[in-house]
């Protein structure tokens, strides 16, 4: 398979197919999943900034 042994040829294709799966999923859901910013999100980021200052 592709000049490679079966196990390696198989995974060579699986790598490409899994990357295509990620690309397909990402493109199909490109504009989905937007969420309104909640108070807890803002508080979380503010707290994160405080923690950063400690460092």
């Amino acid at each position, binding site marked *: 398979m*592709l*000049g*490679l*042994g*079966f*196990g*390696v040829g198989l*995974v*060579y294709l*699986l*790598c*490409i197919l*899994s*990357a*295509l*799966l*990620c*690309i*397909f*999923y*990402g*493109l199909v*859901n*490109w*504009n*989905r*999943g*937007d*969420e309104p*910013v*909640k108070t*807890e*999100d*803002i*508080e*979380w*980021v*503010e*707290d*994160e*900034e405080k*923690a*950063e200052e*400690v*460092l």
Partner: protein
Amino acid sequence: MHKVLLVLVVIVGVFLWAEPALAQEAAAGAAAEGMHINLSQTITVIVYLMILGYLGYLGYRRSKTAEDYLLAGRNVHPYVMALSYGATFISTSAIVGFGGVAGMVGMSLLWLTFLNIFVGIFIAFVFLGGPTRRMGHHLGAHTFPELLGKRYNSRFIQVFAGVIIFLLMPVYAGAVLLGGVKFLSVSFGMSLNQGILLLSVIIALYVVAGGLRGVMYTDAFQGSVMFVGMVVLLVFAYVKAGGFISAHKALAALQNSPAGGGLVGYAAMPTFGSKWWWIVISSMVLGVGIGVLAQPQLAVRFMTVRSKKELNRACAIGGLFILSMTGGAFTVGALSNVYFQKTAGKVAFDYVNGNIGTIIPTFIDQAMPKWFGLLFLLALLAAAMSTLSSQFHVMGTSIGRDVYERGIRRKVASDRLTRLITQAGVALAIVFTVVLTWQYAKNPKEPIIASATSIFFALCASTFLPTFLLGLFWRRMNRAAAISSMLAGFLMTAFWLTFMQVKPASALRICGWLFEKKSLVAKMPWPVVDAIILALPLSFIVAFVVALVTKPMSKEHLDNCYSTVSG
């Protein structure tokens, strides 16, 4: 500024104590065989640094407050988002360490690339990212141990996880650092000691001077350089090996060196059940491929995205990026055998005298134009910086926020002490990492970068994965089950590494000291089977059994954890 000086003095002190010859090396270093950068290469470096500086300034200027950060999220291009992830997660360990292993064992390591993409990107981004972010924000958790601790309402879990991460993440950080050092030593002719000293000083400056969190734009730029560089490298490797199918056929015609142990060629899987089959599949592929789901810095990164939309978009770009980076590095590592065989009559392992970590740097140094090698080196070092800075960040917060604040601190203690302990924790972690790297460098003929990375990933998976996964999706999962699962996974892994798996057991020397044996088991394949094969299933079984025979946590607590965790 005094903190920077303190860390630098400690690092230099450790080196001078550990390696008296270093002073002599340093004196002769500049005149060594490397260090011959011409004008065009100097200009390349300066332009690169100027772009980095400008992008860093741009990122800093664009997000100053919490609201800015959240709103700016709308304007951040998904390409920038995904590439910044990539530059953080793909480091010198993957490219130099695992790429070198691919140069020795062949393309069977592509199974790790498959898991990197399918598990590390697709499953992580599609199924874990959103719930982790929502639960983290809802519970006000900022570290991975804190997320677990709040989900299970357990101080012990947070402190235990914090201690494990603080003490053991240097094992992985040292591997990342050594990967960068190997590249420096090949490209600039530095000795390993000089490389370790130089890189650790740069990292200390970068981290202590305030670069703990990589700025998104600079990370994305570095990710882009790595991405383009790896694609160019991959194309060159194929061209120099005679073309796509011809390269594979030429590779298939070569015999591994060293031979034996089940290696039957660079284009074939090791013999099923052989020593190398177990090392490749159990340690390299499963250990790292699954362990990525329980990486503390990955979970923290999910919490910093603004919405699921960013994760969806990053999935597309991340899949392509990882295919190029790890798939590219492993393929180039394997194909370098064809190149070295053609040009020097030796396969890669023999050409580099068994120094596996130098296979990829040597191939780039010899087969590619010098300017390309320099640019790739800069991007790679930058990637190492991104990964290391996020690791030191996690180690610092583990000791300051998780262990001290949650485990030790009482109301009388001051914030100032928390700050001091966190900073001391970061400094200690850097020094510990440097010492470990120096130890690693003493065994150039072992695949130490890949092995150390695998050990840490497998340890995280066995200790944290059931608690993390079941905590996100299963209301029945409770505190007793989480503690039992974490202890079972950790102790089983520690036992296996100390007494059963021959390489780590030999390195730790406890088994030899107690029993005068390298491993308590001699019958193959047990001495080469990775701990994750036994410890992860055990950890899951313990979690399920204990959760089912003990009382669930209170409805109020679970409602608080899950009220926003759906879909």
